[in-house]
């Protein structure tokens, strides 16, 4: 009985199997082909950068034209996540997949070398014209260029857009009200010790306790920035090193000593503990409590927020924040900068060129996507970025320093806006830059570093325990 119903129903609808399969097949093929018919790029050279660059897009493109870029080469800057780890992740997946867009990547100097070593970037040795190539060799900051080269062959794979060095920012008005003289004491160019710094900040904070919550804000979350930069520079200012000094920064992996459990490194951690808590028995003596414990949850923007809002006395951050804080409608001239304080003077450091005021070498390079559809145009854009006009435009509008240090010698506030007031501090920071030990395995080593340091900061382990564990795990991982 059921079958007869079925038969009647089917003949009523009248769609035969043949028709059904024909219709379904035709639709499916049509839809499938529609997906394949994607258009090519429309010839625009796409640069992947961050929000800061995008906000200055018009000025940068105008400067590119002035530097000689053809008018028929269209350029577009798109923004990715500001945080360096996320950018690395998204570029890694894009290059793994062989995507043709974006054409140019802005890559952190701290993780360009792993991409080079994985053969995922275009070799620029023969791609750039020879005068651009020699300009980079002769005039660009050497430490920055080193992080864009293949560590074995020395071939260039990226054009440095800007090197970056953090500085210590502080509320000049509050400091002067408390009776200090930053200008006549040359704070902008003469580094002071961390001990002196903590005393000054604690003093100024005690006079402003009702209005201001924090004395010193910095970044101490468990992220790449702690290992590469914030902790690296603090440790270096005490004369400590990850792998036994500057000559072992980029290798040889497996053949260099691991030196994280030495006294200077532990001293640096003890000082940070003293900054955060006054009741920790592991904390160093002589330092005042000036930072909130919440710095262990803060990255760059989290730490900048309170300072820009006027709720902190001092702040360690990259120059982009100097542009933000020094603007007329924020702090304006009430913002002062000084080089990062030192733990021990350079003469007391065991390793060459360490100790004294140290600033982590950051900075970003422009690299070329080997799968790009607009190769020739992208090379043109890359070469235009080496022009003086572009460097100064970026400096003025984004706050990123030119990779040619001499360009800043005659520049003042009238040329580049608020950041022009702080150039002398930036020059001091440039001379004291310390790079991170970037190799193809540094990202995983950095994770070990920031996890152990973070454990020490959050009192999960004592500094000695944390550094002993780190010594062990770095020795294990430092194999080719």
């Amino acid at each position, binding site marked *: 009985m059921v079958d007869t119903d079925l038969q009647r129903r089917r003949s009523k609808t009248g769609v035969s199997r043949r028709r059904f399969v024909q219709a379904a097949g035709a639709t499916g093929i049509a839809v499938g082909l529609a997906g394949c018919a994607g258009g090519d790029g429309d010839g625009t050279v796409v640069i992947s950068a961050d929000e800061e660059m995008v906000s200055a897009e018009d000025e940068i493109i105008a400067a590119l034209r002035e530097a000689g870029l053809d008018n028929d080469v269209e350029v577009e800057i798109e923004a990715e996540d500001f945080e360096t780890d996320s950018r690395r992740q998204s570029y890694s997946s894009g290059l793994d997949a062989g995507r043709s867009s974006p054409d140019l990547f802005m890559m952190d100097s701290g993780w360009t070398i792993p991409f080079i070593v994985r053969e995922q970037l275009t070799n620029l040795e023969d791609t750039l014209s020879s005068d651009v190539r020699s300009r980079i060799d002769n005039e660009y900051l050497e430490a920055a260029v080193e992080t864009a080269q293949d560590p074995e062959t020395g071939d260039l794979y990226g054009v440095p857009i800007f090197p970056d060095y953090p500085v210590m920012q502080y509320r000049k008005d509050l400091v002067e009200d408390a009776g200090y003289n930053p200008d006549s004491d040359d704070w902008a160019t003469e580094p002071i010790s961390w001990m002196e710094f903590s005393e000054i900040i604690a003093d100024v904070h005690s006079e402003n306790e009702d209005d201001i919550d924090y004395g010193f804000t910095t970044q101490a979350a468990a992220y790449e920035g702690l290992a590469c930069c914030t902790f690296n520079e603090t440790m270096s200012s005490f004369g400590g090193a990850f792998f036994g000094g500057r000559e072992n920064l980029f290798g040889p992996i497996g053949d260099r000593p691991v030196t994280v459990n030495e006294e200077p490194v532990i001293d640096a951690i003890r000082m940070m503990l003293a900054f955060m808590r006054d009741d920790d028995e592991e904390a160093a003596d002589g330092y005042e409590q000036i930072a909130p414990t919440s710095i262990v949850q803060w990255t760059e923007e989290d730490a900048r927020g309170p300072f820009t809002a006027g709720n902190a006395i001092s702040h360690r951050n990259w120059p982009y924040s100097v542009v933000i804080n020094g603007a007329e409608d924020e702090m304006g001239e009430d913002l002062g900068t000084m080089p990062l304080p030192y733990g021990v003077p350079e003469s007391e450091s065991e390793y060459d060129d360490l100790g004294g005021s140290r600033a982590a070498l950051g900075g970003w390079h422009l690299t070329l996507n080997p799968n790009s559809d607009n190769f020739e145009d992208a090379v043109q854009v890359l070469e235009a970025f080496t022009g003086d006009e572009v460097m100064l435009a970026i400096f003025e509008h984004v706050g990123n320093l030119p990779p040619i240090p001499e360009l800043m010698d005659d520049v003042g506030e009238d040329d580049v806006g608020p950041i022009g007031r702080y150039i002398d501090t930036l020059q001091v920071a440039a001379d004291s830059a310390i790079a991170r030990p970037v190799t193809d395995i540094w990202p995983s080593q950095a994770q070990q570093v920031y996890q152990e340091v*973070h454990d020490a900061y959050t009192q999960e382990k004592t500094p000695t325990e944390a550094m002993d564990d780190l010594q062990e795990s770095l020795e294990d991982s430092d194999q080719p």
Partner: protein
Amino acid sequence: MATDQSGTPVEAGGDSGGIFSGVFTWMENLSEAAYAYLLLIPGFFLLALVAFYPLLDTLRMSFLADETRGADPLGGFVGLENYINVLTGNTRLGRQVIDVALTSNFPFVELGTPFFRQALFVTLAFALLSVFFETLIGFGQALVLDQEFRGRRWVRVAIIIPWAIPIVIQGMLFFLLFQPTVGFGSDFMQAIGVFGSDPLASSRDSFIIVLVADIWKTSAFMALLILAGLQSVDRSLYDVAKVSGATPWQRFKYITFPIVLPALLVAMLFRTMDAMRVYGIIESTAGCSTVPSMTCLVIDGLFGGTRIYGTAAAVAFLTAGIIGIFITFYIIKFRDAEGGFM
């Protein structure tokens, strides 16, 4: 009489072209069941392409060595070495999958790293706890929604809203809630003594935050699935029970629960599978370093900067294997329930 006659063999569609007419004729003479399978072939093909092929490819990748340099992301065949390294903690990953040692004293196992820093334990604890609480809360919500009352429609909407919020937005909510300058969460939780001073920096505290965030979001999902089961209960059964003098608990135990059980098990199965793969809520709240889950480790191996595809594939396949064990467990229970749970 009830033979499967699939219409007249050669229909008026003789315009299909000489090449295909033989195929079409064969197709029209198939039985209903066989025709159904034929039409399902594209679906199976798509499933094989999108689900089975990647799974088998991951298995293949997990048998090859890591290559951190060079153009080729994978090296030669190394057999089970990646799995052994993953289980003994000898990888380049930031956190370990498992780190226990056997001791002779009670409780006979010793944790090398803290419990909430081992990915396997974090993932299992998260899956078990979140499904347990979501089922409990979801069941309660469903029982409430099953009653007739004014404004029931609005209560349903209110319950479903957390489910509708994107994961990253929700993660941001909880992140800001526990930032000292922005939210009240850390002060409050510290005052009642549950959390330490920086919850987003502590593995144990952040685990609880992520767990609560997920329960808040997904109880709605469980509530709706269970509600569907509840609404299929015949109301007259309750009348009979009331007349017979059954207490509310007895009504629940003998009528509601057995009838709802299949829907409940399906809901729990789906939630367990999803919970074992937790990543988004962790990354947008506390970060993968503080609360490592299995998927966190996979992402770390793939995109963490140091390219260790073989290890990542091993962790991914392990996760798939554990999910498979859970599914087998549920399916066996399901089969029992079908046969009558009374």
